[in-house]
């Protein structure tokens, strides 16, 4: 088999060896079964949803900074469209805002941008497959997103255009199970649950597909420990998704049945709600919390691990160094995933659970900080002694590490049960999970967009705009979320429409105004990203096959890869991080596809044995 050094010899816009099928526009770009198109579809959809979720968040922030003032834009849309009188919002509208913000961000942005967009685009390319194992299933996984989006949107429009689920994204019963308990949540909550189920179906289809592809469709020579960390993280994420998500889906079915068909699972008897007859049945509200967090805690890692993997890949390429401790990185991700299944109870320390159970969950939660710490040290170790080039990708990756440190460390407060008693459901926790989910994951994604954009569209994104976007995002982000730690310490609870009616929080209004201004800054910064994304598609500098001089298999394919991905069936000879290898001559990288005819002593160090 002949392998050709990818930077020479072949045209940049080759079509794959699988040849052409004549497929029309619809087949090629809309109902496409090509993993790359599906990945890009996911990416664009999630970026749009990011803006929607961000707008909802700004609504929340506006109310906290200027309570009961007419919201910009929203108040223009009144006249019955939103629950508002005289331009001011009503408290249940506030609950809808934060509920939908969380739902959109978690289910329609973070999860699909990682697994859906990057997972789809990168997995076959990085393992040297021509497509996913089941392209049709893959297409369906994307097209199940839209009914889900429609259901979420529907939940905003049923009940007379001014209702949405108002129970928080956690949808704790009894509030979410008894229709009379939460204003506006009538049909909306049920639609929301349908949307949740559809997202679940989409993710489930994706995850079994990813697992099959990664297990069975690797290129020759791509052993498990030669897989890039991105692939490892996607694999572990897929496992988490496949085995945690069904539990939430099951719980969702139960809640729908409870709301609509009179089934009884979560509502205890003899509750008096909104003058309705006393409830019957012997359900248990905590049951939902257990089922919900059994999924939603692993989901936190679903929302993080792929970013960790991608950052590892990007960081190694940008600092021109092998990743420090490849196998510990893999094992720590596996450990995070494994432990992730047994820590869900730490969301419920104040729920009155058995104290012994609390201790168990507390220790397992503490232990999950350990692999996270190992990963952080390994990233720093990777940077150590490298040749750092500060482009947008590096900046976002370093921001990822930095933000992840903050998010991880603030998690220790919550893991310590007695301290969590105080911090539970305050802004401290809001700060914590935004540092992990936004700070870490989204900065990782921003980097990844910049890094793999040339592979997606064959053009580079603008560095200047990228850096501006990074700087504004970073400042806006920290200005928004860092002060929230202080709010949390001051006992500022989550989900309060008007916290200032409590005198002990009155003096926190200025800090909230500052936060809101920073949030607006951050929101504006995202338009730069969108602009850069669209602008570079037409005007970006043309990228060759391997603009970053990176090692992975995907860089040996044309940019953008044609149908079937590789013009030369790739063969993998080594691990993915052989940067600055003494074996490479004249360059500081050694691609996985490079058969390397010279002899040398160090050999397969890239397999990660050390």
């Amino acid at each position: 088999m002949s392998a050709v050094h990818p930077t020479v010899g072949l045209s940049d816009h080759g079509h794959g060896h699988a040849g052409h099928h004549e497929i029309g526009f619809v087949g090629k770009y809309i109902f496409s079964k090509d993993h790359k198109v599906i990945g890009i579809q996911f990416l664009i959809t999630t970026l749009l949803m990011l803006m929607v979720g961000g707008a909802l968040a700004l609504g929340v922030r506006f109310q906290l900074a200027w309570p009961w003032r007419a919201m910009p834009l929203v108040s223009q849309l009144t006249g019955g469209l939103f629950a508002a009188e005289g331009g001011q919002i009503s408290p249940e509208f506030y609950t809808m805002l934060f509920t939908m913000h969380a739902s959109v961000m978690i289910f329609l942005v973070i999860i699909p941008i990682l697994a859906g967009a990057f997972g789809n685009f990168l997995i076959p390319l990085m393992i040297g497959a021509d497509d996913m194992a089941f392209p049709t299933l893959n297409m369906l996984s994307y097209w199940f997103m839209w009914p889900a989006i429609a259901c979420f949107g529907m939940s905003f429009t049923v009940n007379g255009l001014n209702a949405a689920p108002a129970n928080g994204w956690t949808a704790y019963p009894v509030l979410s199970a008894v229709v009379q308990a939460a204003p506006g949540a009538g049909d909306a909550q049920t639609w929301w649950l349908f949307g949740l189920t559809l997202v679940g179906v989409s993710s489930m289809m994706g995850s079994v597909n990813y697992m099959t592809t990664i297990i069975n469709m690797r290129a020759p020579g791509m052993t498990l420990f030669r897989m890039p960390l991105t692939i490892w993280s996607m694999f572990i994420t897929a496992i988490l998704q496949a085995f945690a998500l069904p539990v939430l889906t099951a719980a969702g079915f139960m809640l729908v049945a409870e709301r609509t068909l009179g089934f009884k699972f979560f509502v205890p008897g003899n509750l008096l709600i909104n003058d309705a007859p006393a409830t019957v049945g012997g359900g248990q509200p905590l049951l939902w919390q257990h089922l919900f967090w059994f999924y939603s805690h692993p989901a936190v890692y679903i929302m993080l691990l792929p970013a960790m993997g991608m950052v590892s890949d990007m960081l190694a390429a940008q600092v021109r160094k092998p990743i420090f401790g490849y196998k510990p990185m893999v094992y720590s991700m596996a450990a995070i995933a494994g432990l992730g299944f047994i820590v869900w109870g730490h969301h419920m320390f104040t729920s009155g659970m058995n104290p012994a159970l609390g201790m168990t969950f507390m220790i397992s939660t503490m232990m999950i900080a350990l692999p996270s710490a190992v990963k952080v040290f390994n990233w720093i170790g990777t940077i150590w002694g490298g040749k750092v080039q500060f482009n947008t990708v590096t900046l976002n990756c370093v921001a990822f590490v930095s933000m992840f440190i903050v998010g991880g460390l603030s998690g220790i407060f919550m893991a310590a049960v007695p301290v969590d008693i105080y911090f539970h459901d305050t802004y401290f926790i809001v700060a914590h999970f935004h540092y992990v989910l936004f700070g870490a994951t989204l900065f990782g994604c921003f980097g990844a967009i910049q890094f793999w954009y040339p592979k997606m569209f064959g053009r580079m994104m603008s560095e200047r705009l990228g850096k501006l976007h990074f700087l504004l995002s970073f400042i806006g982000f920290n200005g928004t979320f860092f002060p929230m730690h202080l709010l949390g310490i001051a006992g500022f609870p989550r989900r309060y429409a008007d916290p200032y009616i409590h005198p002990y929080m009155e003096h926190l209004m200025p800090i909230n105004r500052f936060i809101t201004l920073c949030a607006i800054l951050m929101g504006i910064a995202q338009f730069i990203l969108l602009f850069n994304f669209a602008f570079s598609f037409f005007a970006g500098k043309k990228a060759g096959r391997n603009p970053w001089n990176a090692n992975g298999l995907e860089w040996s394919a044309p940019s953008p890869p044609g149908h079937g991905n590789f013009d030369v069936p790739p063969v993998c000879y080594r691990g993915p991080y052989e940067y600055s290898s003494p074996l490479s001559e004249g360059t500081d990288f050694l691609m996985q596809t490079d058969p390397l005819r010279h002899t040398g002593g160090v050999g397969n160090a890239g397999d990660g044995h050390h």
Partner: protein
Amino acid sequence: MNKFWPFFFMFWPFVAVVLFFIAPSMGWWFPSEAFSPLGVQIDNLFYLILVIVSVTFVGTHIGLGYALWKGVDNKAEKGWFSHGSHSLEVLWSIAPAGILMFISLYQLDVWRTYRVKSAYPKDLYGVAEVTARQFEWRIRYPAPGKKLQPTPQPDDLYTVNDLHVPVNQPVLIRLRSMDVQHSFFVPALRVKQDAVPGTVIPVWFEASKEGGFDLTCAELCGWGHYKMRGRVFAERKTEFEKYLNTLKAEQGFDGVNKPSESGAEIAKTE
């Protein structure tokens, strides 16, 4: 200019730490010192973790920044070709593990006192039943001199949002919910416990200072979640008894024998 970014990443943790230092003087800190023995322990634990975390935070960022600083400067033709170090991995697995285990074990005692029934203080005084509902706290005291019963009694005393407890005395409340899930949160006493519908959860706490402390709801309970402001008044035993007697007189008022009409007596604030 190349040094700007390492500096940028090293600089912001210092801003963060400085912010934490000035926060107390700006009033952005705990609403008050913890006025309960358990609360003091919780605070101490918080400060301990804060110190550990801050050192780690600053340390890792200095490491990160320094690595970047050196990396930008790296004049070598290639980077340092290293796949890692086994001993370093072991070191930085064991060190955090030790610290984390220390934190876990160190706090167990507080948690035990807070939640494990057998570790509750001996002289717990069952003060009232607090029933959370959308969007207020309904409180039921036993008649003066009587014990709190699990079911309502004809001579029970009722009020709303104002919970009076004797100071320097571990007290127990029975926490219930009439409709959805709520959470009983007194920031100044560092007490928080969810009120789960269908169950009665005993909560104990001890206020070590006289005064009124804010009581809020910390679990989303519907549109009026933010409205659930109550107060916990800790007062001397005699005053507490006097309050119960006032309440009793007020509650037994038949329009003839007691002149007070405005409700101002039980509706007292500040």
